[in-house]
C-alpha cells in the first residue's frame, strides 16, 4: 500500500526533526524511563543510542532486551494536544558489533557532533534497537501501527 510509504516519509521527517527520545526499559517488572540522544537507519528499522555501561538503563536492557522508545514533536504548549505526533517504537536492544561501529558512529555523530567524546569513550556502549513495530499517534487520538515484516 502506498499509505505505508507516506507513513514512513512522515516518520523520517519526525525523526530528522527530533534529537531526543524517551527510552523505556524494565528490571524485574519495574519500568524505567530515560532520556537519550538517538539516531536511526535510513530504512527506519533500527534506532541507535549511546550509554555508559554503568547506567541503570544498560543493566536493564542486558537483563531484558525488550524496550520501547518514544519520539514525538511536542513543544510543551497546549497546542501539542492537537498538533503533536508521538511515535512509540517497540523492539529489541543489543550492542552494535565492533565491525559495524564505524558506520553507525558516522550517522550518530552527524546528528550529535557534541557527543563525540562521550560516545567514543571505552566505557560507553553503542546500542541498536531493532524495531518490530511503530505505534503512531496523531490528531490527539488517531493511532496507526507500522510493523516491520518478519
Amino acid at each position, binding site marked *: 500500500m502506498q499509505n*505505508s510509504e507516506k507513513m*514512513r516519509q512522515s516518520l523520517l521527517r519526525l525523526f530528522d526533526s527530533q534529537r531526543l527520545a524517551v527510552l523505556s526499559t524494565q528490571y524485574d517488572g519495574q519500568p524505567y524511563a530515560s532520556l537519550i540522544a538517538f539516531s536511526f537507519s535510513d*530504512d527506519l*528499522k533500527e534506532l541507535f543510542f549511546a550509554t555508559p555501561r554503568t547506567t541503570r538503563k544498560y543493566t536493564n536492557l542486558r537483563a531484558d532486551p525488550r524496550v520501547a522508545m518514544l519520539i514525538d514533536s511536542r513543544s510543551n504548549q*497546549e*497546542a501539542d494536544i*492537537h498538533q503533536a505526533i508521538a511515535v512509540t517504537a517497540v523492539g529489541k536492544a543489543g550492542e552494535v558489533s565492533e565491525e559495524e561501529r564505524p558506520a553507525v558512529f558516522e550517522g550518530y555523530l552527524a546528528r550529535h557532533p557534541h557527543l563525540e567524546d562521550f560516545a567514543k569513550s571505552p566505557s560507553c556502549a553503542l546500542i541498536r534497537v531493532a524495531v518490530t513495530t511503530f505505534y503512531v499517534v496523531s490528531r*490527539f*487520538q488517531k493511532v496507526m501501527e*507500522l510493523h516491520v515484516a518478519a
Partner: protein
Amino acid sequence: MRWVLGLHEIGEAERHIVGGKFYALAQMARGGLKIPSAFCITAETYNEYVSITGLRERILLDLHRKDFNQMRWEEIWDAALRVRNLFLTHSFPENLRSHLLQAIHDHFPDEAVVVRSSSPEEDSARASFAGIHESYVNITGDDSILDHVRLVWASLWSDAALLYRQELGLDIHTSAMPVVVQQLITGDRSGVAFSRDPNDPHLAVIESVYGLNQGLVDGTVDPDRWQIDRTTARIVNHAPAKREKLISPWAGGVQVTALPEDLSSNPPLNDREVRQVFDLAMQAENLFGAPQDVEWTFKDGKLRVLQSRPITTTPVQSSDDKRQWYLSLRRSFENLQLLRLRIEGELIPAMVEEAKVMAEQDLIGLSDSELVEEIRRRNEIESKWVSVYWEEFIPFAHGVRLFGQFYNDVVRPQDTYEFVKLLGATEMESLERNRMLEELASAVRSDQNLRERLVEADLADLELGFSRILEEFIGRFGDLSCPVTGVIQCSQGPEALIRLILEMADHSPSKAAIQFRDLETLTSSFLQRFQGEDYTRAAELLDLARTSYRLRDNDNIHLARIEAQKLASVEEGRRRIALQGKTDAYQPLVEEISVLSQSENSETDVSTPAQVDGAGFILRPRQLIGQPAGPGVSRGLARVILQPSDLGKFLHGEVLVCDAVDPNMTFIVPLCAGIVERRGGMLIHGAIIAREYGIPCVTGIPEATELIRTGDSITVDGYLGIVTLGSATLS
C-alpha cells in the same frame, strides 16, 4: 490591552484589531458623514477571552479531529454548532466583563443596539459571501448584549465561514473577530446604494424598503429600485416593488409584518430623497476612493450611513462547487413551514399513490414493446422523485438544525446534541418496520415447530397469525430482497427476510428501549421556559423539527418503493430475455435494461488486506477517530458492508461497518453491537437510529471500510468517537 476603541481612536495602526467594518465607520465619522454612534470590541479582547476560558485550544482540538477536505457539509455544520455552543456556555471572565460593561454604559445606557461582526477577513470578501458572519439587531440589556457579542465571535467559525475558509483567509490558529456595537437607528425607510452599478459603469443603483433594511439584505422584502446617471444625477429608471411587508424592531429582535395600505401605494423614497441617497453614496465613494456598497436609513427625515464597503464582483462559481447550494439549505422558519405543507399535503401522498398505481399494474400482461415503454416511463418517474428529494426533502431537514440552534440558545446545555432527545421518533417508518420484525421473531422464538419449518424453507401452510403478519410486512415494506441484493437484482423472494427473522429469533430481543417515557416530561419542561407568544413560537419550532426529523427517514423509504417498482419492470424484462435469449426481437429491451444497469452498477471498492510494502513494512490501523454519534461502548467482530449482499450475511452481535446506514437497511440495526460509518454527521440517519436503539455509534471515518476488515475484532467508543482494532497486547 485595548479592550474597546471608539470611532475617534482609529488610525491605520488599529485597522487589524478593529476589522474592516469598524475601520470604514471610523473613516466616515472623520470624513463628516452622518453615522450612528458605535464602539468596537477589538480582536485583542477576543484573543483574551478564548485564552482565559481555554476555548482556543478546545476549538482547535475540535476542528483538528479531521482534515477539512474530508469533511462533509453536515460535519462542518456540526462542528460550527459545537463551537457555537462553546461560546454560549462560557461566560465572560469577570475582569473582561467589567471592561465591556463600562463601554456599553458609557456609550449606550438603556439603549437598543446592533451587534455586528467586523472580521478582518470579511472586509474584502463580504459582498461576495454575504451572511457568513452574524449580526444581531435590537439587542437591549447588559447580559443580552454580552451574549450576542459571544454569538458574533462564534460566527467566526460558522459553517459558511468554514466552507469558504480559503477565500476568507480564515486561519484556525490566528483568526480573531472584532465586534461593532452600534446604536440602533429605527429607520422608517432604509436600503442599500451602489455608487456604481456592477453591470453599467455609468449608473448608480439604489434599493429601498419601508422599515429596517434587514429584510432587503436577506431577501425577505422586495425593494423599489432606481438607477441614476452618475454624471448628471438624473433618475433614469424606477422599478417599483410589490410593497407588501416591512421589518421592524420587536422583542429583542425584528419581525416581519404586513405593510399598512396607505404606504404600499407609495414608493419609500421620493425623487429628492433618491438624489440625497445618491449624493451620500458618491460622498462615500470619494472618501474611500473606490465605488461603494452603502447601507443607509432615513429616520425622521434624517439620512444616516449604517455601513459602507467596496463593491466586489462575485467570483464565478465552478459548477462542481456545491457550497452555495449547501448554504441555500439554511432556510427560515416561515420558508420551512410552507415547505412542510407542500411535502405533507402534496408530495408524499403523490409519491405513495404513484408507487401504488405502479404496483397494481400487470407487467406480465404487457407486450414486449409496451414493457420497454413502461421501463422507460418508470425510470422517468424515479428520476422525477429523486430530483424532488434533493430540491424539497433535503432542504426540509434544516428544520432540525433550526430547532437545535434555538434550543442551545435558550437552554445552553453542556451536550450540544441534547435537543435530539426532544425530537422522539415515534412515527418513523423504519422503526415501525423493525417493530414488526421483532413481532415475527418473537413468534418464532416461542414456537420450535415454526422455527424448524422456516429453517427448511417450508412456507406452505404456516400458522395463520404468523403468515398474516408476514404478508402484511411484505405488503408494507417489501421482502427485503432489494436492499440485500443491492436493488440490482431483486430476487423477489422472502429468503432474506426469513433469514433475518431467524437470526433475530435466535437471540433475545434487542433492548431497543425506544425512550418514549421521557419524551413528554422533556417536552413540557422545555416549553415551561416560555410564555405567551414565545411559547407558541417554541412549540411550533419543536413541531416543525419533529416533522423534519421524521420525514428525513420516511422520505427515503417512500423513494425506495418507487425505485422498487422501476426494478420490478426491469426484472420482468430480464425474465423475458432469459426465456427467449438475446434475439433481435429483444434488442430494444436489452438496450433499455443495459442503459439502466450501467447507472445502477456503482463500483464497490474492494478492501485491500494489509500487505507488506516494498520496503518491508505493514501498515495497520489501531485506533481511528470519527464523531461520537451514539453513546456507549461495545465490542464485536466487524461486518464490513462493501456490497449489498454483505448485509444478508450479518450476524447478531457484529459491528456494522459501512458507508452509511441507508434507511432501507435499518432492519439490520437491532442485530448490531455497534455502528461505524464513513459518512459523518450527528443527524444522519444511522446516528439517529443508533441513538433510538441505544447502540454505540461512531460516524465520519472515511477510511473505515478500507482499513477495517470483516472479522476484525473492534471496539466502538460512542462517547469519544473512537474505534479501536484488535487487542491491547503488543504483538
